């Protein structure tokens, strides 16, 4: 299989890029893919923390592009999955420590050994963004159902198109179906209407994400986590499998809802 470089981006900060990268990377590794995740948020590195790999960092991405170490010396192998690797960001430098050209060479180097290369993009549209998209052939845009997030996602899709990346998919993150039902939150159709790109998954708001992030264990490892389940389905879609997108997943127990539906059907 030809390897894919996928950049995970959003424009706005705090919508779940790093969480998405960690969960998709882990879920793809669970599907026996050889995966490397690159943290390009130089100066504000997070991905290692979310994955619980912070204490294993010796070299980072800046060391690699400057030739201070070999690429496979900087790659950290995940403690849970054989095929999952992380290339961490530097914490003491800033975004200008790497150029788009260097990023392109780096991702091309990684293509030799991996099936999927996930690039975790920093917030914003400056050099960090340009670095992250430089070597990518596909983009996943993460947006939450808020006007500000959708606005920034729209801007990012425009910039992706301008840089020649036409293959963009959307993840709607932190959707609260109860609020949508009440009409208090933008629904999926509202967002798709504005962004008009293909939807690859909807991740519900889920408290288990906070817990798993703090523990350094991605939510996809937990079978009970609803957000984790959504990420597992997105990973299957990324490998080419057809998995239907559930528009509104039931929140909570749902017994009453199910009963109501049966009554409706009976009428």
């Amino acid at each position, binding site marked *: 299989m030809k390897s894919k470089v996928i950049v995970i981006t959003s424009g706005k900060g705090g919508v779940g890029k790093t969480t998405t990268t960690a969960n998709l990377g882990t879920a793809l590794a669970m599907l026996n893919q050889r995966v490397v995740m690159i943290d390009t948020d130089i100066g504000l590195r997070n991905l290692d923390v979310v994955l619980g790999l912070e204490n294993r960092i010796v070299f980072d991405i800046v060391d690699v592009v400057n030739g201070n170490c070999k690429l496979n010396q900087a790659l950290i192998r995940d403690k849970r999955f054989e095929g999952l690797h992380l290339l961490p960001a530097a914490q003491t430098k800033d975004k200008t420590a790497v150029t788009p050209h260097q990023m392109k060479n780096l991702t091309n180097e990684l293509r030799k050994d991996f099936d999927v290369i996930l690039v975790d993009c920093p917030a914003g549209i400056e050099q960090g963004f340009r670095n992250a998209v430089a070597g990518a052939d596909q983009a996943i845009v993460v947006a939450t159902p808020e006007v500000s997030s959708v*606005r*920034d996602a*729209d*801007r990012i*899709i*425009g*910039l992706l*198109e301008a840089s020649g990346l036409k293959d963009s998919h959307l993840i709607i993150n932190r959707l609260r179906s109860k609020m949508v039902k009440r009409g208090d939150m933008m629904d999926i159709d509202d967002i798709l*209407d*504005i962004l*008009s790109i293909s939807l690859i998954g909807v991740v519900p708001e889920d408290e288990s994400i906070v817990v798993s992030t703090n523990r350094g264990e991605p939510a996809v490892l937990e079978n009970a986590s609803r957000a984790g389940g959504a990420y597992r389905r997105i990973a299957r879609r990324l490998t080419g499998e057809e998995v239907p997108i559930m528009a509104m997943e039931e929140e909570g127990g749902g017994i009453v809802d199910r009963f109501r539906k049966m009554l409706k059907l009976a009428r």
Partner: protein
Amino acid sequence: MTTAAYTKGELYIRILNAGSYSELEEELRDRLENLSAYLPGTLVKIDIGDQHLTSKQVREIEDLLLDHGFYLQDLMSNGPPVEDSAAGAEEYPFDDMPYYNDTVMICRHLRSGQKLFSEGNVVILGDINPGAEVIAGGNIMILGSLRGMVHAGAFGDETALISAYRMNPTQLRIASHITRPPDGESVEPNIPELARIRAGKVVIEKLKI
């Protein structure tokens, strides 16, 4: 015989037995001058009995109302139906459209942060999203949803038109006039609309083609 009644936020004016259009217009002008001080911005329904108006006259009446701060809600007549003549070839809105030599056609969505400038007309087959800008010396026609900012007649042409399949802009500018949708209520239009300057104001109306 002329009567005027104000109920439920609407003004109802009845002008019967006006011999000719000029009599009718004069009668209406008198009424409006008396009423405009009390009921600014009111929707008006006018019943003209057996009179028959051409679509040009209907437009004149509409302008007359706008001059006095009223909006024409409905014009009722027992004569030949007004709608027919209004929809006729005479009322084709693009008749008065100013002519520009060059036209740019864009076949994609304009997204936040993207800006398009043209000295002539602009035709867009796609949406204009919030945060995107289109500035044209001439007219702007959007075969999609307008949610961003557009400026037609940017060099001062007050006859420039903006039309959109769905008109829901953050801001509309024609020549030196700047308008925005009213605060609070947001009405999602579900018909194609046209914006132009009439009686010194930017007005949005149903697009009749």
